[in-house]
């Protein structure tokens, strides 16, 4: 057993933290949030140039061949800076699906240009009918000659507006809630029949409602085996859960540390708040919650890296625990900042909102607790 980061991993963490310290204070971040695209294209190119976008991509396809632990380290650092660039969508979900289930041709067609920063992708899987049931897919893909015709609506597709390509879950056979018969298709964003409604999200990102109206794609657009998309989708979502959990761990660290700083300075009743035992204990509990989340995040990531049998169970436990601890740390950071914690001028509010949405993303606490206890 070795739980220490390698030199390369430490360098990665340090380079991201250095970048964030110089380029990503709250003012700069909020400027990006309110910009037209909602993030910085220039930063995106920097991420590519520094090798971050190639990190999880195999060396054969222009990447660095990193594993899920590397991705965890990267997302923990991004979580500390509340990074708004579409790294989750493009790298973890879109490229991740190709990495797991794509053919050699598909990987060659997309992964090198993702690593170089030229191409972005988004995963369109969520549907309003049963948003947390991955197997409920009403969107259909009908085989016509050598093509498939996709029709349906996808909701809250993260960073769809900036994506060049979508990966879309659609039903090629079976009824709407049949676990079999789901397939994943690559769809160019500018295809005929694709329409979008874009909006900002409460946590400073961008998302869209996507409508596919008889969108034609060739048979070769199918990623993985036809009708076996659910397994692939579950694996991709698992990687998503690991990434945003690491992001939450980074965000929680910033929150408990900044709350300690604030309560040491803020005086009421002639004492710094941090002098009061109730405040000390609360800060200690925040620190404990953060550490438990971090531990399980590390363990689940390593198990999924090795594809062990109990990885899935750990991922459910992780998503539950991260939701619970994020809520505790986030709510108490706001509470202990008092009125100041309620203002958008302080970073606390923005970390709080991001943690709130991480809990909602890929299923909230109760769903994963249920899956965990079985």
């Amino acid at each position, binding site marked *: 057993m070795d739980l220490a980061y390698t030199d390369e991993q430490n360098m990665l963490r340090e380079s991201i933290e250095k970048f964030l310290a110089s380029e990503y204070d709250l003012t700069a971040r909020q400027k990006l949030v309110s910009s037209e695209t909602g993030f910085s294209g220039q930063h995106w190119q920097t991420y590519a140039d520094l090798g971050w976008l190639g990190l999880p991509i195999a060396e054969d396809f222009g990447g660095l061949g990193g594993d899920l632990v590397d991705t965890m380290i990267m997302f923990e650092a991004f979580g500390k800076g509340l990074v708004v660039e579409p790294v989750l969508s493009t790298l973890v979900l879109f490229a991740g699906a190709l990495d797991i289930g794509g053919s050699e041709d598909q990987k060659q067609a997309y992964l090198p240009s993702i690593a170089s920063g030229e191409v972005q992708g988004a995963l369109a899987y969520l549907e309003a009918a049963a948003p947390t049931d991955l197997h*409920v897919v009403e969107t259909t893909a009908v085989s016509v000659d050598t093509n498939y015709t996709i029709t349906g609506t996808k*909701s809250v597709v993260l960073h769809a507006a900036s994506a060049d390509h979508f990966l879309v879950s659609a039903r090629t056979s079976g009824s709407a809630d049949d676990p079999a018969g789901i397939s994943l298709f690559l769809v160019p964003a500018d295809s005929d029949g694709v329409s979008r409604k874009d909006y900002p999200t409460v946590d400073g990102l961008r*998302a869209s409602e996507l409508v596919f109206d008889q969108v034609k794609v060739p048979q070769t657009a199918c990623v993985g085996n036809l009708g076996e998309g659910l397994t692939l989708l579950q694996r991709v979502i698992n990687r998503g859960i690991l990434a945003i959990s690491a992001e939450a761990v980074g965000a929680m660290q910033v929150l408990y540390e900044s709350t300690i700083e604030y309560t040491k300075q803020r*005086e009421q009743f002639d004492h710094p708040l941090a002098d009061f035992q109730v405040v000390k204990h609360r800060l200690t509990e925040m620190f404990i919650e953060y550490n438990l989340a971090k531990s399980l995040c590390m363990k689940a990531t390593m198990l999924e890296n090795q594809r062990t049998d109990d990885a899935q169970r750990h991922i459910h436990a992780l998503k539950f625990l991260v939701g619970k601890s994020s809520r505790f740390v986030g709510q108490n950071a706001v509470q202990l900042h008092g009125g100041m914690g309620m203002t958008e001028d302080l970073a606390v509010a923005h970390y709080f909102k991001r943690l709130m949405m991480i809990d909602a993303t890929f299923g909230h606490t109760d769903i994963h607790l249920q899956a965990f206890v079985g």
Partner: protein
Amino acid sequence: MDTSFSSEDLAFQKRVRAFIDENVPSGMAMWTERSKWFEALREQGGWDVPKWPEHFGGPGFTATQRYIFDSEMGKQPTPPQLPFGVGMLAPILMNYGSEEQQQRFLPGIRDGSVNWCQGYSEPGAGSDLANLKTKAVLSDDGSHYLVNGQKIWTTLAHIAHWIFCLTRTSSDGAKQEGITFLLIPMDDPGVEVRPIITLGGSHSVNEVYLTDVKVPVENRVGEEGKGWTYAKGLLAHERSGLAGIQSSVLGLEKAKVNAEKIRIGGGTLLDLPSFKNKVGVLEAELLALEFTEMRTLARVAAGGDPGPESSILKLKGTEIQQRITELNLEAAGMFAAPWGHEAFGPDFAHGATQSYLGGRATTIYGGASEVQKDVIAKNVLGLG
């Protein structure tokens, strides 16, 4: 001891229900028919100001009637009344104001033509309210005070005509002494309001800067240096009012309906054991809290003070409010995210996010939960 209502009380309950059925506006009418609603309440004999004593035009409810009235009103949304005038300033004017002040200010408070805001908190005086620094200096001829300082978290200051302020007129002795209660018009050139945008992007609280504001002594309520005593008595009332128990009962029912709209597995979110348990725990605690409120009311009816026990209501009531917002947020799921002008997903999703974010303030304002616990420990349990 008997929890059942007398026949008179039952008749009163019937009357209140009939009144509501006949008069309560819904939807947009909640805003457009506001004044009609309050007029109809007034015609019933002071129902528009249910907590005011009879000789100030209130209905003179018994404690049981108050409970019945509040419960029935809480069973559906009604047009909101700003609390600062009717609920907060009016009782202070009634108890400590001069007759002239009562005649001057109470009518505008009651008919809603004059909006008030509360100038208590300051950057250095939040939970430790007595630490306030806004200075009021009496002129040599004793005709007016010159006020300088800053208030913060002032709710709706941007639409208020007047602000009632705690100011410091003396720094001698304990912090609680030397505080004076002043009434200041917002259109004074020395009053400046700056908005504070809170979590979720809404604007309801403000900073209020007071620079060389001349306040005639006629606008001082009660005696100089006694402002803390006046305000403190009211804080107990404010706190019990913040519990929002009836609206939580309503909110929890709504949350169940919302959760039932969310399909999960073969059933709905409400069927999920851990979710259902949270709903059950909240229902049980609300039943208990409702009756705790009734016990407080019974004490008042017997001539007692709502007393420090009212802190229990604020403490538990606001935590329950927050937990209900969490249920709705969970039900909204990813549809909590869209933050544009158009709503997507379940009809309650956008509101769920706003309520969750805004609701974080309820355990901070009116005395943070941590301070409420200190109040109970000190004043009820006698722990130093």
